[in-house]
């Protein structure tokens, strides 16, 4: 098993920040079960599938691995993978703090203007763990619903947490009923 220290060393060797999102992508290739841990099978199997057999090659491949996030389909898979990977073993849901951290990381790559508001909303109103369904539906929401919520469909079978988020945005004047965004990116 490679544990946290081992991973730290690996990152050093790769000249990559352990917090770098590319590690998530790597973990995805390795089908790692939990963050900050690689079993021997996962590690070896993952490198084989990537066709990497030396540290050099690994280092060189980092940029291209990182760019995989740009692909929509792959991003979706990585995003959904992240839920299972980031949560505690044996738990069904993802702890709120971890979830928020993950979201902030992921949506740096794939810009979503409402991510900060989403995290604030959760901390103010929800304060509980995040279910898998909510996690995966959030990506759909971010992708399909306009940041001004102009095409938000109340009958759209969104998880109730997302419905509450929309309410929250409207209540706090972040989104006006007509869909004009006020305080979103600091300018209208």
């Amino acid at each position, binding site marked *: 098993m490679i544990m946290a220290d081992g991973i730290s060393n690996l990152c050093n060797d790769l000249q990559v920040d352990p917090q770098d999102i590319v590690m998530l992508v790597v973990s995805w290739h390795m089908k790692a079960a939990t963050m900050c841990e690689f079993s021997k099978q996962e590690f070896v199997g993952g490198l084989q599938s990537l066709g990497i057999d030396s540290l050099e090659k690994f280092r060189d491949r980092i940029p291209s691995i990182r760019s995989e996030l740009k692909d929509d389909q792959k991003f979706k898979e990585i995003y959904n993978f992240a839920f299972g990977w980031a949560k505690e073993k044996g738990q069904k*849901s993802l702890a709120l703090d971890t979830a928020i951290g993950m979201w902030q990381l992921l949506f740096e790559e794939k810009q979503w203007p409402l991510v900060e508001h989403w995290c604030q909303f959760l901390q103010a109103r929800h304060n509980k763990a995040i*279910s898998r*369904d909510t996690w995966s539906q959030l990506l*759909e929401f971010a992708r399909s619903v306009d940041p001004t919520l102009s095409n938000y469909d109340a*009958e759209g*079978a969104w*998880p*109730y947490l997302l419905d509450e988020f929309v309410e929250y945005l409207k209540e706090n004047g972040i989104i006006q009923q007509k869909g004009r965004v006020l305080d979103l990116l600091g300018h209208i």
Partner: protein
Amino acid sequence: MSSQKKRNFQIEAFKHRVVVDPKYAEKTWKILEHAIHEIYNHNASGLSFEELYRNAYNMVLHKFGEKLYSGLVSTMTSHLKEIALSIEASQGALFLEELDRKWTEHNKALQMIRDILMYMDRTFIPSTHRTPVHELGLNLWRDNIVHTVKIQVRLKDTLLELVQKERGGEVINRGLMRNIVKMLMDLGSSVYQEDFEKPFLAVSADFYRGESQLFIESCDCGNYLKKAEKRLNEEIERVAHYLDARSEVKITNVVEKEMIESQMTRLVQMENSGLVNMLVDDKYEDLGRMYNLFRRVPNGLTSIRDVMTVHLRETGRHLVSDGERLKDPVDFVQRLLHIKDKHDKIINLAFNNDKMFQNALNSSFEYFINLNTRSPEFISLFVDDKLRKGLKGVSEEDVEIVLDKVMMLFRYLQEKDVFEKYYKQHLAKRLLSAKSVSEDAERSLILKLKTECGYQFTSKLEGMFTDMKTSDDTMQGFYAAMGHELGDGPALAVHVLTTGSWPTQSTTTCNLPPEILTVCNKFKTYYLGTHSGRRLTWQTNMGSADIKATFGRAKHELNVSTYQMCVLMLFNNGDGLSYREVEQATEIPTSDLKRCLQSLACAKGKNVLRKEPMSKDIGEDDTFFFNDKFSSKFYKVKIGTVVAQKESEPEKQETRQRVEEDRKPQIEAAIVRIMKARRVLDHNNIVAEVTKQLQTRFLPNPVVIKKRIESLIEREFLERDKDDRKLYRYLA
């Protein structure tokens, strides 16, 4: 030579060798012409029918039919022209009389003429496609009399004028009218229609338009309707007396349109006398009249129904939001029943039990009863009141009537599960304090609820009754077995309640007095001896006790709650006890203890304890003394507080919360049932199906349904479809 003759021999038709006198036709015609003149001059008696007939017959036979026919036409025409002059000359009222007389005469003459000319009618006329004599006579009359310039207009005007006079209240010669109208009808239905009916309808429309304008300004609704009805009946009678029956529907349409349809809205909404006033004042006759008149016009009844519905909803809404009324639940329900009875009676007596109105009444009730979320509670309290005392001494049939009325209100409730919860609570109190007026009545109502809602609804209620019966048997067994051990300790009566059936209570602490504790423990031992594996918990907040107490020289028997008993027994061993001492000794929860002490020390006529200071509320620094100055004119004094009451705000919230909690598993069960059957279904359809399945108990909130779906996704009963996120799949 003879053979040639034979070949040329032909058989020829027999010829009647009559010498045809060239003047023959003229002579014959003259005879007939003369006859026609005589007939018209009322001198027919001198004529010989046989001779005239023979003459006519011969003319036709000798091929002079044409001359005969045209002669007839011209002779008749000239007579008619004369007649026309005489009719035109008559003055005023004599005009119609003269017309009528001449018409009658003409018909008589025509009949005779036709009889004379019958041979021509049957042979010459059909073969030449001419108009038969009778019809000819009518047509000539029409063209030469009725449709002459002078007569046509005058006739129409005269007839219409007479109708108007009659409408104005004058008496006219109806027989004469009938004859004239019949004449027009005989001349052909187009003559009747063009010369009379059409103008008649047009003039009537104008007349009734004017009438309606006049009346609507000067009459209230009831009187207007009376007038309209009167006019309608008049017209129907007019048709029956002297018009063509087929005109009835046309003229009634005119009256309906001008007097009713055009003023419909204004009538219904008339201030101080319109529909709403009639409803409020139970004006059955006026309402019945309105119903009968309005059903004749399109949208008439729907406009009544719509205004009635709005009024009902307003009335109901007002009642259920009126703070004053809501203070007394029994009175509130009584008023609901009153409104229902009142309108049932109206629909029965005035609206012909028309289903449309019954439906409007039902939908309005359903609307406003559910506006007030406390309706289920109040209806249960009403039932409670009836079953406690209201139905005392009432006959069986009348009991059924009251219970049926309760069921009727129950059906309107959307939140039937809330009713169930309250009903259970109130029933529990009734059973435990043995305060039910009649067990038959209780059972009857439960049976009705079962019929309405199914076995599930009432199974627990029935369980409560069973527990009561079983407890009686248990007590008998207890005393039989342990009677000797108990000696003259306090007499115990225990009701053993099955936890699932009775309303959930939180168990509270309470220290029972030692004498009570002893006998209670004996019971517990006995019971658990015969029923192993069970657990008994004393529900000290639901019990009651009868205590004999001596105040000075007066003895009284006090009926108190268990808590009150515990407090009172303390005073056997000490007096002047502080609140804290009482609290410590009994360990009764604070709010219950305060309420208990309040009923013992602060209630007028029931203050078996004295409190210092004498304030109304219980303070934690108060001291309590046994009040040996207590007196009452009754030997038995009731101080217990186990009557069902309207809940306080916090209690209400708690009950509502419990109801919401109970609904969650029901919703989930419905979702699972539906998904198991359908396998794949989209969100909106699930919500619709769930609502449909549960609507006999309550109306589920779509947001709650959504949360339950998500919970089921968490627990892997369902999943979202990979491609369509609005679709859910059942996971086996």
